[in-house]
């Protein structure tokens, strides 16, 4: 019983359908369910909204176009026109994280972005992909990235390791930022929600707090999706233009 009411209970992975392929555990869990739900919701939203693409957009088409234009503007501001061909990927990252966060705000749902392994996998794929793009574009010249121009050679032994560490920590900071935000927000909501019943009449205070916090969490869902996308774009910009 106490285990059930733990603020962390909401993050538990529950296997719904046990599956295994070639020795790999591919069980369909509640996390998988919400990932698939996110894909379905986003795809349906965008496809249905654009089903009858009109010159003067309706409500749904406006929202679909708004999300497209939003990501396109973030990309244009950070990467420039050179990043155009990476747009579908960046757009997918944004919509996947945004809808993952938002679906997680529904009561009794599961937030897969609150799992470090999920956010870290996305961040690692981005990190490896971006590094490969940089190596393919600049070949060995890419390693000059770790030696900022205009720095005296004397500082190189100190600066280069720092730059390398900072570069390697990118996927960690990127994934931990999203994971920690989701974890903290949902835990806080659960903790305060637990007070509502136990305080009786005075439960109105934590109840009001939870209402306000829910609003804040929805803002954070947007904000973290935006920050994740923005940083991905910045890394892509570094890969394409080095300094």
């Amino acid at each position, binding site marked *: 019983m106490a285990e059930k009411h733990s603020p962390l209970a909401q993050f538990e992975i529950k*296997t719904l359908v046990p599956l295994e392929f070639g020795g790999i555990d591919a069980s*369909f869990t509640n996390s*998988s369910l919400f990932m698939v739900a996110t894909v379905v919701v986003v795809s349906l939203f965008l496809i249905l909204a654009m089903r009858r693409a009109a010159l003067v957009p309706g409500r749904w088409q406006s929202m679909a176009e708004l999300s497209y234009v939003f990501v396109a503007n973030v990309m244009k501001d950070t990467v420039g026109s050179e990043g155009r061909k990476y747009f579908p990927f960046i757009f*997918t990252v944004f919509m996947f994280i945004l809808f993952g966060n938002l679906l997680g705000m529904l009561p009794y749902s599961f937030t897969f972005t*609150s799992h470090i392994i999920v956010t870290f*996998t*996305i961040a690692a794929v981005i990190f490896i992909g971006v590094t490969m793009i940089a190596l393919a574009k600049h070949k060995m010249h890419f390693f000059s990235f770790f030696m900022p121009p205009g720095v005296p050679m004397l500082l190189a032994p100190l600066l280069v390791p720092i730059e390398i560490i900072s570069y390697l920590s990118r996927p960690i900071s990127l994934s931990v930022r999203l994971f920690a935000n989701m974890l903290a927000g949902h835990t806080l909501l659960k903790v305060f929600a637990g007070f509502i019943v136990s305080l009786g009449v005075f439960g109105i205070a934590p109840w009001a707090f939870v209402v306000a916090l829910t609003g804040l969490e929805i803002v954070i869902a947007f904000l973290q999706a935006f920050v994740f996308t923005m940083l991905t774009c910045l890394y892509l910009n570094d890969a394409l233009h080095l300094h």
Partner: protein
Amino acid sequence: MPQLDVTTFVPQIVWLVISFTAMFLVMWKVCVPRIGGALEARQKKIEQNLERAADLKAEAEAAVETYEKALAEARATAHEEIAKVQADLKAKQDAEEAKLSQSLQAKIKEGEAAIDKALQDALAGLDAMAADVAQAACERLTGDAPDAGAVNKAVADAAKARQA
């Protein structure tokens, strides 16, 4: 903390890869081209309309220019016409006036001639009348009639003396 349960890592990664790849394919092949196409079509349409508006504006300006030119021409023609009509009228009036004054002059001359003649006639009659009066006066005073020729001569002399 459930997040650190390593046994859940593999199935989560597997399903993340599956769902993310599926979503990427849908976005890449369906959604992004569709939305991008709609936005592009709108942009194109707006540009076309702006172009057409510019064309129409140029046309309207040309029409205004033509109209103003025509108006100026019409005004000039009208002025010319008015001047011509005025000159014509003036010439006609002058001719009429000249004709009128000529005929008036002729009538005045005629009148003057008539007056002159009447005066002469009257003056001629006056001599005869004066002679008659003088003869009658002499007859009454003296009792006998003087010679008509002498009377006439005396009257003519007296008239001459008075005129002189």
